[in-house]
């Protein structure tokens, strides 16, 4: 774990990615404890639609709310949803993928067909269905994104698990009589950490993107809680008058996704089995 972090810092794009993610985490925490320049919900009626200034670094919106403070809270929202949904998908997907690979034949077929059914739904539509059933909101977004991403984790885990199953050290374990639980956890799971880590960071990027999309459609986090997608959607009609209302949320979303993508890429480079073969 520590080695991975150190390697990430050494990696040129990993450094940047890690920095952005760290920055966003800090901002999210600041927003959560209320350390924002202004109260994000407060409407400064005298300062509506003002461009960036000394008091309001990123300007204000139609209702006189400080864009920057809202962005900070919005980042927090996005991060919570992203981490929670990915945690769900990772857990569910890994269990399904691992068991499908381990049990093989019939169960593999059944489980992966079930995953295929989920995958045959375009992501947004599946999310829409779930949101329609449960009603829009933060928790729903978490569930929707989590369920949509689960089959992807199952796929990502199943492939490597299948080839690990055939490796000599698993055969060796069988000759000792090691229990299935031992083999699954110590032999398979431990060696799946690498591809999983990469996929988790990429999933986080995708979760951010999807969450923003859902809020853009008005189906994610509901007002008055600020959310990045909603801010962008609201800015559409005021584009010509107040471009800053569009630029800052857009940049914030992009930078967040970029951060996770860069980190994921760097992890992939570091954990590439080719670079791990250090002997002749």
């Amino acid at each position: 774990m520590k080695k991975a972090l150190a390697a990430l810092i050494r990696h040129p794009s990993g450094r940047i990615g890690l920095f952005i993610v760290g920055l966003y985490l800090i901002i999210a925490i600041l927003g959560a404890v209320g350390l924002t320049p202004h109260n994000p919900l407060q409407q400064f009626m005298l300062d509506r639609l003002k461009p960036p200034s000394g008091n309001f670094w990123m300007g204000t919106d139609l209702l006189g709310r400080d864009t920057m403070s809202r962005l900070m809270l919005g980042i927090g929202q996005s991060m919570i949803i992203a981490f929670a949904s990915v945690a769900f998908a990772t857990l569910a997907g890994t269990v399904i993928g691992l068991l499908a690979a381990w049990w093989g034949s019939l169960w593999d077929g059944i489980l992966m067909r079930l995953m295929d059914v989920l995958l045959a739904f375009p992501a947004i539509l599946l999310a829409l269905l779930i949101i329609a059933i449960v009603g829009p909101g933060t928790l729903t977004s978490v569930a929707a994104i989590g369920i949509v991403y689960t089959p992807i984790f199952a796929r990502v885990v199943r492939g490597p698990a299948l080839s690990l199953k055939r490796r000599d050290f698993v055969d060796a374990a069988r000759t000792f009589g090691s229990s299935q639980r031992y083999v699954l956890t110590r032999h398979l799971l431990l060696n799946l950490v690498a591809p999983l880590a990469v996929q988790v960071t990429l999933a986080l990027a995708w979760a951010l993107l999807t969450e923003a999309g859902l809020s853009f459609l008005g189906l994610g986090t509901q007002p008055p809680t600020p959310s990045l997608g909603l801010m962008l959607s609201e800015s559409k009609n005021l584009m010509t008058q107040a471009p800053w209302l569009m630029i800052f949320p857009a940049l914030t979303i992009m930078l967040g996704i970029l951060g996770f993508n860069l980190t994921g890429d760097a992890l992939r480079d570091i954990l590439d089995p080719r670079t791990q073969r250090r002997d002749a």
Partner: protein
Amino acid sequence: MTKLLSVHDLRVGFGRDPKANEVVKGVSFDLDPGQTLAIVGESGSGKSVTALSVNRLVDFGGGRITGGSILLQRADGTSLDVTKADEKALRPVRGRDIGMIFQEPMTSLNPVHTIGAQIEEAFRLNRDLTGAAARQAALEVLDRVRIPDAKARLAYYPHQLSGGMRQRIMIAMALASSPRLLIADEPTTALDVTVQAQIMALLAELRAETGMAMIFITHDIGLVAGIADTIMVMQQGVAVEQNDTGAVLDHPRHDYTRHLLQAVPHFSAGKAAREDGKRAGGGEPVVRVEDLVVRFPVGKGLFAPKAAVHAVDGVSFDLLPGETLGIVGESGSGKSTTARAILDLVSRQRGQIAAKAGQSKRPIQMVFQDPFASLNPRLNVEALLAEPAIANGQRKDGALRQRMRFLLDRVGLPEDALERFPHQFSGGQRQRLCIARALMLNPDVVVLDEAVSALDVSVQAKVLDLLIDLQQEFGLAYLFISHDMAVVERISHRIAVMFAGQIVEIGDARAVLSDPQHSYTKRLIAAVPAVERRNQHFAVDVTQVPSLVRPAGYEPPPARWREAGADHRVRLEAVP
């Protein structure tokens, strides 16, 4: 006569600072037209890098020539310094003046092009032949390398051919332009012994026909004894000895050369077999295998598979304590499947495997071929050694750790190895770890499936010595599977020869190796390269391995044996 190739003080390095990471440190040699030079060394010696520098292919792998010169005399009489030439000048040289064949025929051919297309490309690039002329040339060269049914093969894809055939095709491509120099980088290392003999014979014949010079890279000094005019021995990037073949083999001057010739296992037709056999004294076998049958269904019939691969077809043998039975065979012989079936890693259709009731619940343990793949890279040595014990109900306590330290010491590894991870050890050390792990449960029998095949020859010798020591100390019985006759000779008391899933000859090692009875055994032994055989010439023989696929329900005729000595049985061959 001017030299064809003149290499002077060649230095090659890798990475961002090649001068600081030199792999070849000042190598010099000359080559006359028509002469064959063998470069012999183990991994890390720099032999491949030297070869790849001659046509500057090393550049594409991240290498840089940091010093020295390579002067090549071209067909038109001009001389070219390869080290200073640019890509444009080098391209016509590659293929036209210098042909090359590589170690892995499986991955050296483009999987999405037919072999006909690939051979014709060689002709197009180097002899300006196109269309029908190129196709005709391809057919001719396929005939020359003895590929049967050449016309049909042109449309084949690489994956449809065997390793030996693929290597022949590589040779055919390299020959397309009648190069003055052929570089062969370990061309037979990945091939079976008999196939290797065929390829070597082919190369010798082609060399005589075309008069081309050859640089032959290998780790097996015995292999080149018959084909090389001069030998250069490399170690750690430096040429430690360089002379005519006869001089190097009969009067080696450098310690390392002597080591390669003497300390390393060489095949000597039974003369080096072990003396401490246990059969004479009688005794209760520690494991007995009877009529082992392993078949894999093939194809998808409507209700039941229509055919099966008969991987193991009725194998029987037994093992006395303290005895080593070596099982030799080539790919497809069924020897590895036999090993795996004994350990229940592969299910068997029939067969009794009776192990003597001993103190251990798992009296048979295994050491695998690839030391890197048989150790979980994420567990440290302590966890790896503890696994068998934990799996059998023992607790991870002081007594267990004591046993670990004891075994680590016996296999020659330091005590602090317990905290380290597999990747921190060399191949030979990892294999020692695997041996220690196999001994944790105090087994009666250890199955070694090509356990030293992936190691360098010097390391092989040490590990074999260790195994023999351990056998004598603990009274272990070994089932030693290998394709390498020299290694088998060194460690076995008895030998079983397997072919197409059946044992064709079994008995005392010395008897089987010095006086082989079955035709396959004779062919196998004749194909093994050895220093003493350097003046023998092999006939080119294109016998293929028979297919093991039989229709469902097929039963082979029962085995009939004859005795050829006190402990020497030969399977009677079917009358053709």
